[in-house]
């Protein structure tokens, strides 16, 4: 029984990304992106546009390449040995993999929040001030204080921590730590925020808080989020991309993907027949 189903899966051909992968006035556009880990190819010919001040959700089963794709967007894959990338990834029409592009500067424009909250072994204040200090965003102590406060307010964390700014960041709860990581990311005022399953380690209440935060942040920032929760994708995103075994199967407006998917594989996934 299982075997037959599996065979069915492989019989379905993934020719070309269906739906509406390309849009006008894209913040990020990727064309013909292939990613290899050594000999193994993890992404096959990915073509997606990410719209400005939009949230795009990337869904798909584990190992389908959505996190790998996300990590291409701020060149985090550079830190992984024997990972190489070909194709064209443009941020504001500027090739981020061209020779003269400094990945360090790119990452200041494209921030990232990880699956597991990873505050630095520093105080709450220093966690938020970290990036600002690195990039010289504040010229005085007062300015830095203001920036930290503003970022914590935007991340919805300030009320909870305003009396304990000098306590270690690791002393916070999981949900608070994740909001701290978001606060430190928005403190450097990036243009894009990448989120790699930001709520998978959190309880439903903390998740709801972060989802609200994402929607609020999307007014100012472009957000790409990888998630395993289809409800989350449906709740927060304007567009959704479905990944399958390294292929981008379908990209379209979120309500279309979830109500009227074009591709058989997408339908299988969102109706729970697979993955």
């Amino acid at each position, binding site marked *: 029984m299982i075997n037959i189903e599996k065979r069915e899966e492989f019989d379905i051909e993934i020719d070309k990304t269906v739906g509406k992968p390309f849009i006008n006035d894209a913040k990020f556009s990727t064309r013909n992106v292939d990613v290899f880990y050594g000999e193994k190819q993890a992404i096959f010919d990915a073509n997606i546009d990410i719209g400005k001040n939009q949230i795009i959700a990337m869904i798909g089963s584990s190992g389908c390449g959505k996190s790998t794709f996300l990590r291409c967007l*701020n060149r*985090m894959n550079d*830190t992984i040995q024997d990972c190489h990338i070909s194709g064209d990834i443009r941020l504001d029409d500027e090739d981020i993999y061209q020779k003269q592009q400094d990945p*360090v*500067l*790119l*990452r*200041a*424009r494209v*921030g*990232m929040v*990880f699956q*597991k909250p*990873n*505050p*630095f*072994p*520093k*105080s709450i204040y220093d966690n938020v001030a*970290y*990036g600002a200090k*690195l*990039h010289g965003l504040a010229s005085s102590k007062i300015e830095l204080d203001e920036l930290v406060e503003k970022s914590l307010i935007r991340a919805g964390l300030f009320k909870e921590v305003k009396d304990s700014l000098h306590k*270690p960041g*690791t002393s916070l709860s999981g949900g608070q730590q994740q909001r701290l*990581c978001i606060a*430190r*990311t928005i403190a*450097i005022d990036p243009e894009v925020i990448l989120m790699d399953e930001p709520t998978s380690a959190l309880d439903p209440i903390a998740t709801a808080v972060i989802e609200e935060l994402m929607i609020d942040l999307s007014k100012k920032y472009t957000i790409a989020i990888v998630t395993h929760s289809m409800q989350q994708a449906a709740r927060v995103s304007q567009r959704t991309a479905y990944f399958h075994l390294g292929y981008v199967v379908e990209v379209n407006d979120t309500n279309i993907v979830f109500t009227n998917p074009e591709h058989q594989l997408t339908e299988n996934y969102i109706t729970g027949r697979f993955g």
Partner: protein
Amino acid sequence: MTFGVILTALMALLLLGYYTGRKRSISLSDKSNQRLHSLPQHYGYLIAFWSGAPALLILLFWSVLESSVINAAIVAQLPAQLQQLSADEVELFINEIINLSYSNVAIDDDVKRHAALYYNELIEFSNWVKSTAVFILAFIGMFVALAFVKPEMKARNLVERLIRWAMIGCTSIAVLTTIGIIFSVIFESIIFFKTVNVFDFLFGTHWSPQEAIREDQVGGSGSFGALPLFVGTLLISFIALVIAVPLGLMSAIYLSEYSSPRFRLFAKPVLEILAGIPTVVYGFFAAITVAPFIRDLGESLGLSLSSESALAAGIVMGVMIIPFVSSLSDDVISAVPQSMRDGSYAMGATKSETIKQVIIPAALPGIVSGVLLAASRAIGETMIVVMAAGLSANLTFNPLEAVTTVTVQMVALLTGDQEFDSTKTLAAFALGLGLFLTTLVLNIISLYVVRKYREQYD
């Protein structure tokens, strides 16, 4: 039977006990059709313990007490005038008899021959009783324990409790040994401080431990001002740490963050070999290569230097302790989670910013303990100093002069034939106490540092 033979036989019995216990538990459970509470081997361990432990205890007890009981018995049957001798002389006499009884020499003296024969008899009798008692006890233990085996017996819990007690025993041996050493050092030091004032010892600047053995001897003043020794120790250790900490830390950072895995695989063991070279080798390397090099360098600059200097010893010692810093730091730096690095890179930090501001703070407790281990090694090091820094107790902070250290002077004090109650010998204990307190303070400081960072960052 000798001790060794009895012990071997006892081990065989232990094995036998294990297998019978195992078998009996299985057959009992089969017979009564009842499930065993624990695994069969737990019953086996229990039987083995009861066949071994009581017998072993008796064996040890007997072996410890045997000689004093036998000696008393021999003394009791000696002629009256020999019993009048002082305790030392009686002991000497008994030793002679024991030696005679083992040799094949014909003994002329009647008293001695009788005593030697009597000694032989006693030893044989004692051995016989001892082995019989041990084996009887072993079998009794085994059979009584076997009689207690029932399927519902909680053998696993009992075995686990036994193991816990065994571990408590091991821990207490280690702790008690430490306490014993500390107390013996303290007591000997107290005797020393009865003749030499504590303040004269700690703050005296003149070290010349030669004492007059005869009344009319010249040149033996016996002056115990240990300040130059402690200053020398700290000076050399400081030089060593100045060399080892930057070198060790930098190489640790390179190995864990920058180098290719293949290079690290090769370089780390090579670095660790440095710690495995005997210090004597470092010592003559220091004395023959480094010290003359420093002297020649000084001469070319117009300084006249001796061929022994704190600098030479410190440099070589620094090289020796590099692996303590580098290897431990490398381990803790590698143990910093990758998510921490990713977090920092994702903020647009460069590699060096990440290392300086995230990885080093996260790894600091481990780095501090590595440095402290290196410092303790430096403070306790003797051989390099003897060869390269000399024996003269100068009170100086000049690294180009010859100095000496606490450990070197301890060696000097105790080398050769010594009386154990002379001030000179006791001074070694006082120095040892001082050294112990120094490292203790260092350890407390490091614990404080580590705890402070743990509180702040974990």
